[in-house]
């Protein structure tokens, strides 16, 4: 018994690994197949976004805000635009607010569909992966139709939107929503959340307790899966979320399966929101005229919103210059990924993949 470490192996998972969702690295100490210790390592796509914000005009930062979380780019565009608008003290026309809400929800659906697809891929089911992308492509095409871009739309401008919605967009969107709703309710059900093998891998794995949530400051769907009913959209409404009727989806178990189901339900809930918005979208302008280069007086501006990954926030310090003095970005995944130190311990190597996938981290926003 003097050589206790004889069975321990240290393996590096990442940064280039099929299932780390980008470039994350975990130094994992395993005993046989059980994980004993995890040390996450981040920063592989650190681009110095906060420094670049200090170097750029307010408007010029928008494409970079796009690429913070490249899976839900529009949410971050809206967040950044709202921050600057609040600092400037301008109000956005109601039509623009409604369209922003609509686009945010579309982006949320795309992000969650990508999550479902990746969950399938992580567990070795390539078909779920492909099908998830098939449905995501439909929404991608609509985003492209609206904005001209697929992943980085650059649709939201400071003061509103760059363009109005195209002709006949709402009909196409509604028919797409019907397709996605039926696919999620039927095909995905058979392949994933009612499938025995799928449940075997997901149920009871990687349970996040309420203490861990508070300890690491996790937000978003991950805590709603643990029974914490917290959603900025409902609790502290922004955009047009106080004018639509929707439920905050919660589960109680807190395991991978609950996190999967929260996202599935949120897709259906987003469909509900979009249908309401299309019904009572007001007409009018979509943009207030804001000059390209402007100055903001010394001010502290704080805005938080709910992105598909949790509560994102921007704290902007201005000093009367044409550029922000400091822009601090709160990326929800940055806090979520800290929790793996506890979540992975005691599970198998195969569970690492499932748990990490169900947390839905995005290295782009973790590293900024």
């Amino acid at each position: 018994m003097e050589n206790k470490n004889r069975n321990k192996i240290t393996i590096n998972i990442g940064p280039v690994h099929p299932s780390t969702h980008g470039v994350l690295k975990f130094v994992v100490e395993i005993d046989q197949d059980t994980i004993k210790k995890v040390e996450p390592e981040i920063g592989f796509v650190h681009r110095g976004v906060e420094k670049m914000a200090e170097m750029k005009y307010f408007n010029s930062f928008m494409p970079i805000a796009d690429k913070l979380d490249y899976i839900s780019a529009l949410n971050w565009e809206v967040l950044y635009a709202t921050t600057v608008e609040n600092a400037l003290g301008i109000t956005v026309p109601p039509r623009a607010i409604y369209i922003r809400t609509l686009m945010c929800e579309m982006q949320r659906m795309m992000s969650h569909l990508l999550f479902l697809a990746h969950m399938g891929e992580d567990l070795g089911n390539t078909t779920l992966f492909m099908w998830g992308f098939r449905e995501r492509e439909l929404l991608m095409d609509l985003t492209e139709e609206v904005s001209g871009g697929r992943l980085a739309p650059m649709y939201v401008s400071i003061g509103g939107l760059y363009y109005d919605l195209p002709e006949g967009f709402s009909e196409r969107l509604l028919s797409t929503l019907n397709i996605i709703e039926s696919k999620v309710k039927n095909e995905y059900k058979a392949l994933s959340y009612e499938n025995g093998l799928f449940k075997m891998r997901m149920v009871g794995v990687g349970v996040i307790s309420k203490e861990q949530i508070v300890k690491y400051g996790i937000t978003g769907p991950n805590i709603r899966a643990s029974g914490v009913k917290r959603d900025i959209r409902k609790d502290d409404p922004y955009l047009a979320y106080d004018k639509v009727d929707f439920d905050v989806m919660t589960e109680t178990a807190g395991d991978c399966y609950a996190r999967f189901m929260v996202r599935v339900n949120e897709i259906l809930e987003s469909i509900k929101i979009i249908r309401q918005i299309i019904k009572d979208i007001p007409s009018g302008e979509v943009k207030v005229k804001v000059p390209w280069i402007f100055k903001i007086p010394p001010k502290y501006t704080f805005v938080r919103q709910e992105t598909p990954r949790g509560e994102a926030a921007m704290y902007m310090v201005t000093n009367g210059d044409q550029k922000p003095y400091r822009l601090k970005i709160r990326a929800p995944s940055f806090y979520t990924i800290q929790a793996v130190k506890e979540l992975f311990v005691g599970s198998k190597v195969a569970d690492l993949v499932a748990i990490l996938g169900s947390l839905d981290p995005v290295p782009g926003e973790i590293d900024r």
Partner: protein
Amino acid sequence: MIYDFFYDFLAAHFSPLLSTIGSWLIVFIIGGLITLNVPIFLGWVDRKLSGRIQARYGPVYTGPFGLLQNVADVIKLMGKRFLTNQVIDPLIYNIVPIAIALLGFFMVFIIPWGNANLVLLYVPFNLLFIYIALAVSPLLVLLAGWGENNKYAMLGGFRGAAQITTYELSLLIVFISVALLSGSYDITTIAAAQSSVWYVLYLPITLVVFGISSLAVIERGPFDIPEATQELQAGWKIEYSGIRYGLFFIAEYVRLLVISMLIVYLFFGGGNGLFLPNYLWFWIKTSIVTIFMMSLRWVFNRPRIDQLINIGFNWLLPLAVVNLLIVGAVMFF
């Protein structure tokens, strides 16, 4: 028996020694060609099938219907430079892919191809020989994981050894129950014994046990845990590049085909059927079974290794044993 056919043909013209050598040579060449072509063709079927399931096309541009796609893959793999880390065990590292490919060749050699006469070399008890060829693989997997000197490979090797060892037990018991029912370890005799009733009606549970165990033994389908791409990148194959990696495809697809043929022989009456000739029936059944076994990979996710071993020891093995006991009791009384 193709060997005997060629021997008789050659013996009419040449001396016995020469015709022995000659017919061995011919049989080896035929077997080698089949071994090489099975993965090329089945790999194409696999890629097309996965494409169709996943709402894509699969290979299209290389050759008609993409048929030459895997030929291109083989040519590319042959043209790759040999590259590995510096601390491998060269003997073990190099022997494993060759041994695995040779086992595939061995199975091609002794399995009847739809007819008692269409076998390259007749050996008695060929069911047992095929079992041996399937069951020796945990050793090779473990050796590969060791010889590559890579932690991922070693984890994959351990996983593979555990998984295959678990499932080849139930596989053996399935073979024994079928042999008990038919009174023979010869594949064609077993098939011929089902001329009136297929064994799938007697032993439906055994068929399920066989299907799951065989997929686990050949590391195919949802049970590709030792080489799980998303967890271990390529598991015990991780350090192999070039044609050494290509040799694993031979093993994968030949064993898949052999498993499908065994299902037809043991449970679906081999070539027995109405109206159509024997070999046609056999190949129709084999195609259906092969495509079914292939498509399992694309609709299920893979379980965890401990779950798989639990299922193997707690469910499949007892089921197989109970089935064996029932068959034995029925045959005895």
